[in-house]
């Protein structure tokens, strides 16, 4: 079970995170902490022509939360922001392709929760200002 959870790809994303860092002027920015374990993720992103052009994550926590956030940023980059807003957790878990359950679900989905938070806020702000 542990070998499947901590498979090579997860450890690789944990040790060599893709898209880790910050953006100078992110339009989309959100962060959250998992109360039960203290894991933190911040996501910063920019939108261009309706697509997510740049995206970075930062934070600290277990291998599952950090690698999942990293994989998610790679997955959404270049995709339409409106479509990303419609992503559901089943799709994200499929993307991770690891057997997570129980307490570790929160770890695996922390990055997704933060991304969703940032996008909802961003889209809400955009709609609010245009009306």
């Amino acid at each position, binding site marked *: 079970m*542990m070998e499947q*959870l*901590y498979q*090579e790809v997860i450890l690789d994303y944990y040790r060599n995170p893709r898209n880790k860092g910050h953006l100078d002027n992110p339009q989309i920015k959100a962060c959250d902490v998992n109360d039960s374990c*203290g894991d933190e993720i911040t996501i910063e992103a920019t939108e261009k022509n309706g697509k997510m052009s740049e995206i970075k994550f930062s934070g600290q*926590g*277990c*291998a599952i939360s*950090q690698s999942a956030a990293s994989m998610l940023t790679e997955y959404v980059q270049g995709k339409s922001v409106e479509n990303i807003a419609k992503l559901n957790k089943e799709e994200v878990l499929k993307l991770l392709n690891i057997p997570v359950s129980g307490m*570790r679900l929160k770890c695996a989905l922390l990055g997704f929760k933060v991304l969703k938070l940032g996008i909802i806020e961003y889209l809400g702000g955009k709609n609010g200002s245009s009306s």
Partner: protein
Amino acid sequence: MNVKKEFPLLKSKVVYLDSAATAQKPKVVIDSVKSFYETSNANVHRGMYDLGEKATDLYESSRTNVANFIGAGTTEIVFVKNATEAINLVANSWGFVNVKKGDKILLTELEHHSNIVPWQLLAKCVGAKLLYVPITKDGELDKKEFSKLIKQKPKLFAVTHVSNVLGTINPVKKFIAEAHKNKVLVLVDASQSVPRTKIDVKNINCDFLVFTGHKAFGPMGVGVLYAKKDLLENMPPFLGGGSMIKQVHLQESTFADVPARFEAGTPNVAGAVGLAKAIDWLQEKGMGNIQQHEKELTKYARKKLKEEKAIKLYGSENNAGVISFNLGDMHAHDVAAVLNEENICVRAGHHCAMPLMNKLGVPATVRVSFGPYNSKDDVDKLMSAIQRAKKVFRL
């Protein structure tokens, strides 16, 4: 020590290495709580019937038991819910009377959140300032810095006896003597030390001492505040309600003598009874024996962990049964998850001591803590689970 068989929960296959979070309970303690509800349950200090008197006697004799155990007077013992409540009681009652704008409160970088946050709330309210005694790289309090800071004459020095993260044993008696020379009162958080060290409050001469019952083999939901009698008698109530009053009028009330003044509402009588039984159990086994046993185990475990190159150990050899470490570049939660698969219970995280974690420069550690029921066999199981973790993490 051969006490494991007295702990019903440990008959399962778990290897329990988290006694600093909460201790397992011996059967005699569990039975005492059960027996209270089955044979003596009534509200205390109220019923004009024999059963009520029986419950009251049990509650008050539990108080005497606690008092004798730490060398206090019976009226100097207040039953609370846990150490956190005891510190909040002191901060809200003594604190609001004695700490004014511009005053200082001295804490240490080793404190549990329970000995930081109540003081932050008080300081913010009255405009006081918090100072901290730093730790050295070995995880010991910096005594030179303490001597400098105490000369700033804070109103109170609040310090843990034993660190819940590093196991550091602080020389509280020396600190208290130096604090008193500077006319500073001292509160000792003895939650981690009461289960393993004989404490005499008159000997160390602390002004306040707090501990929780559940870490000392008692039930959850009962804790103790000790305060010197002259201090306690001059403190205003913390929580208002039944039991803590003499007379209640529509606009104001007069308050009961101590310790009842600080025990509003129906107390945790079964909890107090269980705690008293836990104290009997501790004394029967011998505090010295327990301390010696845990010391040997800690030494053995530190030696084994040190042999493992991928492990970084925190803290020093001056240690009361608590070891913090990290494995390679893995987060403590990942390590704990693998250990859990091997039925090993350890704590992973910031251990309610975020300022200390910042000082150590890590977000979290794995913490192993021992009780009298642990053995070298448990340490060996831990070490083989760590080997498994190394394999899982390709370390």
